[in-house]
Structures are given as C-alpha cells and as structure tokens.
C-alpha cells in the first residue's frame, strides 16, 4: 500500500500558549512493498511523522494519502478503522501495552476489535506467536509472567495478528540485548519479504538503516533533511555529522582508510563482508602487480 505525505505540517496544542510546530512542509512518498528507514535525533519530528502514517494525527495543513484514502487537514476524517487495521504500528516499548490475562487473549484483542471472529483470531494468534519465535505453550500464560524480551515478542504478535499491509516500527529493539536485537530485526525483514509488507522503521541505529532499508529519510528540525538510497545517504558523512547523526561504523572505517590511502575504494560498503572482500581483492591485485 502506498502512503504519501504532501506538504504536511503539524502543530501541537494549536491556539494555546503552548503551540509548537513539530513538522512543516514534509513530503514523503512510501511505495508499496518498500522498506523505508526514518532517522533523526530526538525532537527531529520523526514521531510526529509516524503518527500521520495511520491517521492518529490529522495534519494541520497538507494532505496524507494512505492507500486510496485521503486524510485532509481541517476536516473530521471518519471511519478510520480500516486504515488502522491495514497500517499496524509497533510503538516503542510495546510490552507496556499488554493488559490481558493470557497471551492468547492479548493477541486476539486487536483482530477481534476489527470484527474478526474468535475462532479466526485464535488461529491468527497461534500463527503470529510462531512468527515471533515463541511456541504455542505461551498461549495460556499470563503475559506478565514472561521476560521483557518475550513480552516484546507477544506485543509484536498482537500487531501481526491484525494482518496489516503496512508495518510501522518505532525503535522496535530499544533495550534488547545484541542477540535479541538481531533476531527481532531479522524477523521483521523476513516478514517484509514473505508477506510483501510495506515496512517503515524509525530508528537511531545507522547500522539497521544501512542493512535493512532500501530507502532512508533523514529528519531534522521538523523537515526532511535528506532522502535516498542508503549508499548515497552514507557516502556523504559530513551532512549527517552536521546534524548530530553519524554513519555506520563500517562506512566510517572505510573513510579513515581512504584518507590514509589518498584515494577512494570502488564503492561505499554498508556491510562488513563486502568491505572485507574488496580490501582482500585490492591486496591481491597489488601483490600480482609487484
């Protein structure tokens, strides 16, 4: 499903002394089936953008198009439930939203709220639980007896069980240990491919953006500062450093090496493996020449 923000501005607490302009003139096009990463430091407006993606916020000016629905400023937009079903948001620390007596009831809550039968919801709960890497035994447990990492997975299963077409992930791995982080990120990537989802990842991790996304949008001071493919975005690190962001470790390392070499390698490497291969090929050629 395509989503686009067209000249969107949003003011919090409009017409009060606390009025603040969170985003302005924001144009973002997200095409169906793409994986977009939104990066920016705290206060850059990325959370405000996120809340426009399923019409939790209505723009103060400009339009948001979600699939075939137009969300206009200054209008009461009714019947938003179908949008909320199609665009699933995994909020930061989603485990804090668990509330039911059992894992099964908690996962079923969302789909049943959207009119899915109990039988179908239970079927989806099983499937979703499997997808997040937990066995069926967990269905009857209380979510509050689980570890933090398991609770996070249950909360994610609750979003997956609504079978959304678009998955919006707000810092989904915050607070997890390295293995947990990788497992969750790989799982989202697998679902992205298998279910042909449109995925939007809000993150502080340059590494995750570089590895998983096919497009990166950088927010700064309520505006889109830059957008493009990861390779293009990270090939110009000065721009990022200027707004307090960084490039992935491997990109920074390559730049340091290039400074010493006095020339550039063939391309900007976003992962360690391809970088090592190029360095190794490079050295082999060098030996052959000598």
């Amino acid at each position: 499903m395509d989503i686009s923000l067209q000249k969107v501005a949003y003011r919090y607490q409009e017409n009060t002394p606390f009025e603040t302009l969170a985003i302005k003139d924001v144009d973002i096009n997200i095409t169906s089936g793409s994986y977009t990463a939104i990066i920016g430091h705290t206060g850059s407006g990325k959370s405000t953008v996120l809340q426009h993606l399923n019409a939790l916020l209505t723009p103060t000016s400009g339009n948001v198009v979600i699939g075939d629905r137009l969300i206009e400023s200054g209008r009461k937009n009714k019947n938003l439930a179908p949008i909320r079903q199609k665009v699933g948001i995994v909020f930061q620390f989603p485990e804090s939203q668990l509330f039911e007596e059992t894992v099964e009831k908690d996962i079923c809550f969302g789909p049943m709220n959207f009119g899915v039968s109990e039988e179908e919801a239970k079927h989806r709960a099983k499937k979703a639980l499997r997808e997040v890497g937990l066995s069926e035994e967990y269905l009857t447990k209380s979510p509050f007896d689980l570890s933090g990492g398991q609770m996070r997975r249950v909360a994610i299963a609750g979003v997956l069980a609504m079978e959304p077409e678009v998955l919006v992930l707000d810092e989904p791995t915050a607070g997890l240990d390295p293995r947990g982080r990788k497992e969750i990120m790989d799982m989202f990537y697998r679902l992205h491919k298998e279910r042909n989802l449109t995925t939007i990842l809000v993150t502080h991790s340059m590494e995750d953006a570089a590895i998983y996304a096919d497009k990166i949008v950088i927010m700064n001071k309520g505006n889109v500062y830059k957008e493009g493919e990861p390779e293009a975005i990270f090939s110009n690190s000065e721009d990022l450093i200027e707004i307090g962001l960084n490039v992935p470790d491997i990109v920074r390392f390559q730049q340091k090496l290039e400074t010493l070499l006095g020339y550039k390698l063939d391309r900007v490497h976003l992962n360690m493996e391809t970088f090592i291969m190029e360095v190794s090929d490079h050295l082999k050629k060098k030996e052959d020449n000598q």
Partner: protein
Amino acid sequence: MDHKVLVAVDSLTFMYEDQQKKALDNVSFQVMQGEWVAIVGHNGSGKSTLAKLLNGLYFSAEGSIRIGDIKISEETVWEARKKIGMVFQNPDNQFVGTTVKDDVAFGLENNAVPREEMHIRVETALAKVNMLPFLDQEPHHLSGGQKQRVAIAGVIALKPSIIVLDEATSMLDPQGRQEVLELMKELKQENMTVISITHDLDEAARADRIIIMNEGKIYKEGKPSEIFQLEKELIDIGLDIPFAIKLRSGLRKQGIQLDKITLTEEELVTELWTSHFKK
C-alpha cells in the same frame, strides 16, 4: 585507582518469589575505590537483579554485599544508599522535580541538607554535568541525554562514593549516549567509582574491568582487552563484540595478516594501512 575495596559482594544468591530458578547464583566480586567496572550480560542474565540488590531494593537470603564498612540489610539500607547512587534506564521515569534545579535538590531535601549548602551543591553538581545553564528549565524541554545528565547530577549532589548506572544509555539517541559516556569518563577521572550495567559493548570497552554475567553467574571477568578476545564465546551467550574487533577478525579470516592486537578503530586502520598498503 586506589587499592581499597569499596564494594564487596560475597556468595550472593537470590531467587524471585514465584520462580524456581535462581536469578543470582553464588556471585562474588569486588570493586576498588576509583574503579570503573562494567557488568555485561544478555536480557535475563541477572545483571539488573544485581543492581537492585546493590541498592537495597531487594535483599538476599544468602550471601552479602558490603559498601565500605556497611553490610547492606533492611536496617542499614538508608545508610548504604547515601554511599551508592543509582541512575536508571528511562530518563522520564526518574525526573521528579518541576525544574532542573528542583529535581537535583529533591534528594538533598530528603536528606535534610541545610538550604544554604543545598544551593551550592545543586549548582556544583549541575556545573559538573554541564547543565548549569538549564537550572530553571522544565524537564519536557530537555533531550533524553540532558535528562540523564540531570539524573546523574541529582546523584552526585548527594556525594556518594559510588555511582551505579543501570542501562542508563540504552534509551538515548546516539548523541545523548555520547554525552552520558563522556560524563562517565569525567566522573571516573575525578576518582568516582562507577559500576555500569549494560549490554552496549562500546560502553563496556571504556571500563577498567568487565564482569560478564550469564544464567545468574559470573561467566568471565577481566580487562576489556582480555574479554574481547573471547569473540565466539561472547556471541554464543547472546552478546556481541565491538566493531573494531569483529572487523579485525573478519579481515584475518580472509587471509589478511594483522599481527598486532588492536582494540580500537584507529589502531586497526593504522595497522591495516602500515602492514599492507604503505609500501
């Protein structure tokens, strides 16, 4: 660093009420005055339980914790908490004052510090964390990193001998994280004893010593340079290794000879260049 033991944990064992598995199982270690120790482990390894016991939020039935000459118990906990300051994960959950100044003063008021002295201590603490210009600001105007720095000021205003940071950087953006890490380094230089509980390996790499927890037990203990040689073992227990060490090992696997042991990016790039390109 002096060679005086400040924290002595001895055969500490702890089990949560409704669980069958020990969250901590016979844990013993010491922290010296002025030392920075990082306690590392995956989620559920027991490291946060340890933090809660260090601060007397829980008490164990077996084993003991001594802070200086105080053995932590229900009777001595208030005395012990004067010596050990805690900074937690979520910057929003530990801001109690309506302004930065009030927030830092909160702990001092609770300890009945005279008003005159309170003013001095608040300002000194805020100056130390570089937040003095924000004295009268309200918390919602601050970034996550700034809030954590204020939380740290609140702790150092109480002049503890040791500061425990329980995943204090894990909810911050990269800039905020950097700010707090810099501050930790400065505190350590001023001879503050620091225990940082974390699964950020770059944070742990800055410590004097790393203690790795796994399944409620101490799995390994040593200097960062020693610990990070364990590469595969660390990954097997759900941790990771710092970028520069991972890259070095990847390059070597590809047959690129790197003899010198390097721990940082700078060292590695120099080593790679001098031994292979600079000819």
